[in-house]
């Protein structure tokens, strides 16, 4: 049963990783605009310049 200690520690670490990922995404503004990307993806994109550029 002692292995449970390690498992719990590992699971907390993984969950904590996701938490950090969420905080990072939130700080980067991933949840800021939930509408525009849905429209943007429908445009015919002639110029490669406007996409792949940094998000904010």
């Amino acid at each position: 049963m002692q292995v449970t200690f390690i498992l719990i520690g590992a699971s907390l670490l993984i969950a904590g990783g996701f938490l950090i990922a969420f905080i990072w995404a939130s700080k980067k503004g991933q949840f800021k605009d939930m509408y525009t990307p849905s429209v943007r993806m429908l445009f015919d994109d002639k110029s490669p310049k406007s996409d792949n550029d940094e998000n904010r």
Partner: protein
Amino acid sequence: MTKTATEHQTACFHCGENCPTGAYRSGEKSFCCAGCRTVYELLNNNELNTYYNIEESPGSTQGNNGEAGRFEYLDDPAIAHRILDFKDDNKARITFSIPQMHCASCIWLLENLHRLSQAVLASRVSFLDKKLSVSFDPNRLRISALVELLASIGYEPEISLDFIDKKKSGDSRGNLHRKIGVTGFCFGNIMLFSFPEYFAPEGLLTSGFQQFFFYINALLALPILFYGAIDYFRSAIHGLRQRTINMDVPIALGISMLFIRSYYEILLLNSAGYLDSFAGLVFFLLLGKLFQKKTFDSLAFDRDYRSFFPLSTRTRRQGRERFIPVTELVVSDRILIRNRELIPADTVLIEGDARIDYAFVTGESDSVKKEVGDIIYAGGRQVGGTLELEVVKEVSQSYLTRLWNEAKPESQPGVDGSSVSSVNLANRISKHFTFAVLGIAAATLVFWWIVDSSIAVKAATAVLIVACPCALALSTPFTLGTVVRILGKSGLYLKNSRTVEELASVDNLVVDKTGTLTTVKQAEVEFAGKGLTTEEQSMVRSLVRQSSHPMSRKIHDRLDVPDNLVLSGFEEKTGSGISCQFGDKTVRIGSRKWTSHGEHSESSPAGTSRVYLSIDSKPHGWFLISAPLRPGMKAVMDSLRQDYSISLLSGDNNAEEKNFRQILGENAALHFEQSPHQKKEFVEHLRQQRAQVLMLGDGLNDGGALAAANVGMAVTEDISSFSPACDAILDAASFDRLHKMIILTRKSINVIKTSFGISFAYNIVGLSFAVSGLLSPLVSAILMPISSVSVVLFTTLSTNWLARKEGL
């Protein structure tokens, strides 16, 4: 924007407005004005035609574009530093607020700015915020040129003092999201580690595991206390400093008691503590806060004077004219103000024919004549020619700025936006609540100290824990938030949830006539009198184009001739009319007196009004404008007059008194020929008699009255343009549902009261456990979430049910 195109009228290819026949063409396309054509040609030449393929007529009407150079002040290094998000040697980024963006075409065009200017590196739109973020090369493109580029394609950014100051405030909602994320994470894990405790207090787990779980819980609780719940402590301390006990005081008390008691039990007594309750409590409270915040995002009402002040003004220094930011105006600067421009600082008139309209400050929209040497206070709007003024006080010390700051202390938002003011019903209770809880805790402590001192502290802290007004704090935001959301869907937009409470207690209804009870939009315009030549029609149309009065707009829409004649000496006198010269001809449009028409015997038919026309002081006839009542008006007024005393205030004459007497009933007070100032005084007078007044106006000349009323509601056909001082905006199409909406607000207050009853019942159960010293962690962990969740469910479901019953 009207999109109706009749047989002989074509819609502008750019903006969809009606075009005068053959006025502006480019190729096969017709346009309503030179501005629209310019935009089209610019886009066409740059192969940006896709703009017109995504949506039909996506542009906005091009008004008079200001002259070149008016953005030059933006290049000033100090200003640039304040408005740029980021800058290094070859890249800079700036975020603009562009209220004109409204469709997918806008997004497409704004994100393809780099095709119009090589120096633009990239541009991104955030559609819901109406924000555009542009990265550009500052060596090749100045900020002013960028703004001019945007203005030239019809997307002039909104740049005001407010815009600059807002740069500093961070994004608080993202912060709340993170708090909920962290708290939710800790809460979920604490619940998992607490489960064994619920089902098998001892035996199932070896004591090693048990202790391990306790310590993990203790660790997980730290981020909740120091990150998730920190705002409640701040707000409670802030409240206590101002000697008020707000709802956050008992919450902070309960949270800290839970935490301290749990740590004590875990570290010294080796038992579970109440960390599960603690985590759940903070998590639910934060969810409530998010819900409350969401309802405010839809419309930005909280504009203040800074949103209306111009950012720059034309200044003459050492004989040179240039635009400088108003914040840099110093005493004895000479500034130039043109027609319809706002005066940014307290000044003395040096030169020019000054007619100042203070509608923005006082709600009194008659313009005041000023002589050379008179002081002109900030906030006035020049109506007429250009003025030269000398600054006597800086912007921050001007009369208006102080007036604004003094007049509005009660509506200042709380520490965290608006949540403090919006829970005022709850706040009223929270003071008594806090003292009652402290009293019961003290009594418990004393009682058990005498009877059995070993559990005295335990029982007393249990009282503080279980009495934490979680349910109480959640019920108000959830109920009012739901109401605000439902009303918003039905077409009534409230400034904040406090307006719901105000609206519920209204007993007096004051309505404006034109534009409120009657609709100007579907008005029919007929000309009666001598026939007009095409040239005369053109003059009339060019003149009314200068005015934003609804009647002028109607006449402008009705006529079908070019409206681009050169005019001079334009004058607008509110309540009377407009006039100007075309060469040597004077054209006047407006009231009978204004246009020197004589009396005439026959009165105009019901629901119509006349706008008279004279050319060179010779009466020429009148436009008969019929403004029909809004659909459903009769029915909604019939039901409203059962519950409220109704007053009608109208700026027009009493020709229609009989009609409105029929609609509004025998008891209604009808007042005609009211100036904006009289309207305001009328509302103030009612309020002095302790009436709770709801003022309904169309926001153009009712500004003062709207501000004076408990609830000022602007009725508008177009919800994106409205006047500054109002608490609510009613979409004109929803007018027939007004009474149902008010009934819903009343019922929602009952829902809150009922939910208070429910949470008190929970508290009594919890307290009876607590005072008898029996509050186990398990009871607390079950009771507290159940009380919160059930109260939230009750308020949300019952409010929705009530709304459905009312048919909203």
